[in-house]
């Protein structure tokens, strides 16, 4: 059981190619990290897997437990078990967090089935406590007026409630101070286990001190150029990305 990205090519609708034959397999029970310089295609990858309408896939496939999800609407991909924790979570004025998460869960039930309210709030409060989110949060509008830390915690809360089989965390560390980062990472770690595969996208190694990956990939120019264990992240942190770019250029001209 895995999320397989096979020879994926994609671009901004009508624009330049951003992913150029990307291969990656995220197994259930493991955490992969993708690191890469700005503009390497990290965030684009997450949006393309989730089905953002601004991008088009020009080749390859994305298989979720064997099913190609590229022809599916974003909501169908979500219900199939894919979750994306956004780098910039969107505000939805007037819609309370409790109602939003409830609607998302309700969307997973068969027609005519109703989410049981007491049970739902029980689960929600349990997950909120874990993320140190105060109760008043349920009545606030989704992400409206949230601090960066609150937004990221909300993403992790939604992930906990929706229990995806595969989760992509896009720059979940951006905009977080160290205390917030610890809380968010603890929330993510609590969800690790044999039933979920995770892809953590980050620019900095810092996040990977708290969410320790099984595998680290480096994305440059729309391709995975290196794959290794967690030690790769430290190497990148000390040497920067130029080191890899230089190596690539050297290899290309050799």
């Amino acid at each position, binding site marked *: 059981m895995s999320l397989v990205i096979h020879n994926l090519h994609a671009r901004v609708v009508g624009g330049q190619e951003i992913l150029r034959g990307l291969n990656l397999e995220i197994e259930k029970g493991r955490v992969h990290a993708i690191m890469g310089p700005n503009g390497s295609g990290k965030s684009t990858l997450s949006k393309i897997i989730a089905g953002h*309408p601004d991008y088009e896939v020009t080749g390859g496939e994305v298989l979720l437990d064997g099913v190609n999800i590229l022809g599916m609407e974003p909501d169908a*991909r979500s219900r199939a078990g894919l979750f*994306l924790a956004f780098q910039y979570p969107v*505000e939805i004025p007037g*819609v309370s967090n409790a109602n939003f998460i409830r609607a998302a869960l309700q969307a*997973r039930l068969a027609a005519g089935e109703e989410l049981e309210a007491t049970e739902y709030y029980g689960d929600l409060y349990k997950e909120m406590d874990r993320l140190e989110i105060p109760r008043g949060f349920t009545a606030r509008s989704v992400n409206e007026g949230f601090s960066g830390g609150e937004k990221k915690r909300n993403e992790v809360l939604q992930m906990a409630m*929706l229990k995806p089989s595969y989760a992509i965390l896009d720059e979940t560390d951006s905009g977080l101070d160290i205390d917030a980062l610890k809380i968010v990472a603890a929330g993510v770690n609590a969800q690790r286990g044999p039933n979920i595969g995770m892809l953590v996208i980050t620019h900095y190694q810092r996040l990977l001190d708290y969410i320790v990956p099984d595998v680290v990939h480096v994305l440059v120019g729309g391709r995975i150029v290196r794959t290794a264990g967690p030690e790769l992240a430290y190497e990148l942190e000390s040497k920067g990305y130029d080191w890899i770019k230089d190596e690539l250029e050297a290899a290309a001209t050799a």
Partner: protein
Amino acid sequence: MSTETISQLDVDRTRGDFHYPEQHTFDAGVGLSHATIDYIADVKNEPDWIREFRHKALDVFESKPMPTNWASKDLDNIHFDKIRYYLANAQRPTRSWDEVPDDVKRTFERLGIPEQERKFLAGVEAQFDSEAVYSNMKKALGDQGVIFVGSTDGLKDHPEIFRKWFGKVIPTGDNKFSALNSAVFSGGSFIYVPPGVKLKHPLQAYFRINAENFGQFERTLIIADEGSEVMYMEGCTAPKFETATLHSAVVELVALKGAKIQYVTVQNWSANVFNLVTKRAVAHEEAEVKWIDCNIGSRLTMKYPGVVLKGRKARGEVLSIALANNGQHQDTGAKMIHAADETTSNVISKSISIGEGRASYRGQVHIPKHLKGCKNNTECDALLINSTSRTDTYPAITVRGSGNSVQHEASVSQVSAEQIFYMQQRGLSEAQAMSLSVNGFVNDLVREFPMEYSVELKRLIDLEMEGSVG
């Protein structure tokens, strides 16, 4: 909220879009003339003063031009000579659903009215085309002196109250359509609440158009005597016909000293209805009038509920929601006429335009120079769903004098693709995501509504959004 409650309030478009064959005992025929008016007055066996009132009103109607200089040119598509002005089966409504003719009863049962009456209403009037077919009120209210009847019964049985206020809040010549209503009105409610009587449960009227090429012209007059309180709710539906149907009501409210009136409308007209309604209240000293107005459906709605704040410390409020879908124009707003010191008014309007729908807001706030301590707050927010959707705002605020304050805020926002993508990523379909955005947009306003109506409104919004995504 249990699912049972939701289904009992299920008055959606598909539910309203049906009709049974017509068989009318009374039919004034097609077109409008003084003979039409005599027919109506004869059939209703009305006193002479009303007959004269109607004839004069027809002259006023004919003398007034269509307001197309400021309003929609679509008004020119109303063909007054092709409309039927009076259709009825009987002259007196029954007090028992068992006595309502089967086909008519079936209509209201499908709309869920008898059930709602049992559950939470203090009284119900059900109008079918020109006349009320059913009218009943809890006995205890009658014992307290509350009157809740149709306008026809009101003017006959309670002339001493009726005549004193009828046509005083909205004179015949107020506008072309108030003149038309004054000429051919039939049905609507007449309500009188005696001093100090506070109704715990709402009174409800349901207006149903069943016939094609028809004009419904109900006339409602509500008088809340000193210190009394009443909530009135109205619902409206019509089946979808190919030809235009006209609904042109006049609603007059009088809140005497310290009285409170809340008037709630949830209209769900089919897209062939011209809905041109004049609604106004007079609030005396320390009285409070609140209009809650939800406009969904219709081809063109023009409606600007108003409050004349006549007594010191009177309060007026208009909370409105308009949803304009493809081929629809919701031209709505509010009028607040301050005419005494320390009067306050509040207008909150939210409009949603979908597809090529158009929502316009027209607001008038008038505070003359000699008054002191008056306050107005106006907020109007528009939400555009598509790039082809349209909204316009036409505020007219005249506030003079230094002792008064006015606050006006307007905003236009659009449901962004990022918002929809975010919600879809959580598993909501595009239509569900749109619906949630729209419900979020109106949410703070809907919280002010009676529970029963906020649930129905949410359902109606969901239905509109479902049809608009494709």
